[in-house]
């Protein structure tokens, strides 16, 4: 039973990776990583690094002055300044130039490209079912000893596989670019954070994986939505157009509508879970991480159910 499903997944993979379009997408992603890394390196090279220690000391002086001059400028601001001073002291003490990019700077910047990975995967997902109808191959695909549900599952898994492949590629390419541009000796460099008046060292890999992880949540939601749209439309260009439209308009829309309390139930208002981290602010004050996760799960189930219903219950007449 499972071997049959794995064969179906291999079929779907063959149909993804034997198309030249897929390789153009992979090329675009690699190009984007290269471009981003190149620009970062170029930007870094314009800064004069010779007297960074003096600069940091000067900064600290300024900030300390600020703290004593305006003691009532607000809790947030003053704690920000104290943190910054602590960090700078740590840099000076350990002879770390914060302006100098390390391998991990490149890798953590690459998480911005997960948006591109999402767009590329949405294109693939939107095409996954609709293209079979466009090509007319759906008939022979369905007339076989595999139920429609199994065919749908195999297509969904192959789509997620494509997303995972792109994410790994994005990570690996930026890691390689970082290593080449900044040297691989930065590999063990820790992530520095200040809490309770102390500077803490933690793993850069875990922090990067966390950033990737949050982006994967929105990736899965967008891809699942595109997959549903794909089984609703029987033309691939329509499915791709609508999926990208929803995805790109969604964020703007949820920001515009955030003044209305019902907007918290929209998919796009909940899709960015980083809002609930220390550094973020929720779209609406009453929203919490748990609430958003529940809403996302509900949307996920509904998307999958509609996609399944549309794919398995409709007649293939044309």
């Amino acid at each position, binding site marked *: 039973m499972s071997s*049959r499903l794995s*064969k*179906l997944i*291999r*079929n779907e993979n*063959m*149909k993804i990776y*034997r*198309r*030249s379009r897929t390789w153009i997408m992979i090329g675009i992603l690699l190009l984007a990583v290269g471009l981003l890394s190149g620009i970062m390196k170029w930007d870094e090279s314009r800064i004069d690094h010779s007297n960074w220690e003096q600069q940091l000391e000067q900064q600290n002086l300024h900030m300390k002055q600020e703290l004593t001059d305006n003691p009532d400028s607000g809790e947030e601001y003053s704690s920000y300044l104290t943190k910054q001073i602590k960090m700078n002291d740590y840099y000076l003490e350990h002879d770390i130039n914060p302006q100098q990019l390390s391998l991990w700077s490149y890798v953590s910047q690459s998480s911005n490209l997960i948006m591109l990975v999402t767009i590329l995967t949405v294109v693939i997902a939107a095409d996954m079912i609709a293209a079979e109808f466009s*090509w*007319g*191959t759906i*008939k*022979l695909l*369905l*007339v*076989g*000893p*595999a*139920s429609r549900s199994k065919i749908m599952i195999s297509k969904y898994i192959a789509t997620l596989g494509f997303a995972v492949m792109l994410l790994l590629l994005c990570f690996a390419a930026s890691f390689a670019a970082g290593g080449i541009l900044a040297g691989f000796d930065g590999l063990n460099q820790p992530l520095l954070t200040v809490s309770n008046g102390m500077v803490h060292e933690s793993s850069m890999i875990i922090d990067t994986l966390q950033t990737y992880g949050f982006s994967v949540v929105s990736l899965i939601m967008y891809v699942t939505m595109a997959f549903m749209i794909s089984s609703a439309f029987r033309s691939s260009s329509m499915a791709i157009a609508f999926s990208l439209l929803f995805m790109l308009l969604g964020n703007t829309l949820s920001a515009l509508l955030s003044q209305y309390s019902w907007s918290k139930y929209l998919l796009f208002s909940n899709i960015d879970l980083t809002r609930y981290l220390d550094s973020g602010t929720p779209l609406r004050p009453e929203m919490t991480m748990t609430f958003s996760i529940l809403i996302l799960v509900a949307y996920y189930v509904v998307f999958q159910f509609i996609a399944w219903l549309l794919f398995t*219950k409709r*007649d*293939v*007449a044309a």
Partner: protein
Amino acid sequence: MSEAVLQLRNLTKTIGMRKIVDNLTFDVPAGEIFGFLGPNGAGKTTTIRMIVGLISMSKGEAIIKGVSVRSHFELAMTHVGAIVENPEMYKFLTGYQNLIHYARRHNGITKERIKEVVSLLGLQNRIHEKVKRYSLGMRQRLGVAQAILHRPSLLILDEPTNGLDPAGIRELRDYLRKLTKEEGISVIVSSHLLSEMELMCDRVAIIQAGKLVDIRSLQEARSQAQTKIVIEVGDPAAAEQLLSAAMDGSGMTVSGNQLELTADKSAIPHITKLLVASEIEVFGIHAVQKSLEDQFLEITGGEMIV
């Protein structure tokens, strides 16, 4: 009649108020090329698509080799190979990759089997080329290859000749004959092209407005084909009177000097004798075989599109 490879039981498709397919019940015997014949829109394609699960059944049942399509779809489909209209293949894949794609759905199709089917259909020279460079005829052959890879008991072809040129149609016909002989496959084929069905099928079911009109063996139809006798006489009125009295005058028509009647060829000497004895001048008598086309047109009330 040997064991039925396909049984239809009250198969019905209703869309809105309209019954596209209405209570079809019949058996398709094994080892034959069986045709679904009917005018456009008679419900042939809908029937076939219900059998292969592309369209849901509103009522009734299709049973392939004793397995219900409705309740055991996956098992039933292991016995079936199908081409639904023109076989659309993945154009960006090679012919061979397309076959791998279809082979993976079944258990135990070896590389040797794929090779065997490829050479059976004469595709070996171009099997590693992309399908987008194939002609329609070659795609049709690849479609047949895909359908027989898993040695199905039943091959279902829906309007397989649509879009094929006469040479392609002939080629397909030859392959089907070859397959029934060499692989012992039963074939169901639908078409509105009567002349095609006549050349291809052993038996046909005539479907009209979603209903089964008749099932005919074409061999019987050929041997039992009734003859039309055309007689040219000097006095057609007298001849009509004479012959209708003598031969209970089934379907006798008069046009000008010509008298037409339906009778077996063996009746000609008797008719001649009668006419001569009554001193009616006879200018000519000849027998015309009534074509299958005429017979089918009679059955379907002239709606056949040929």
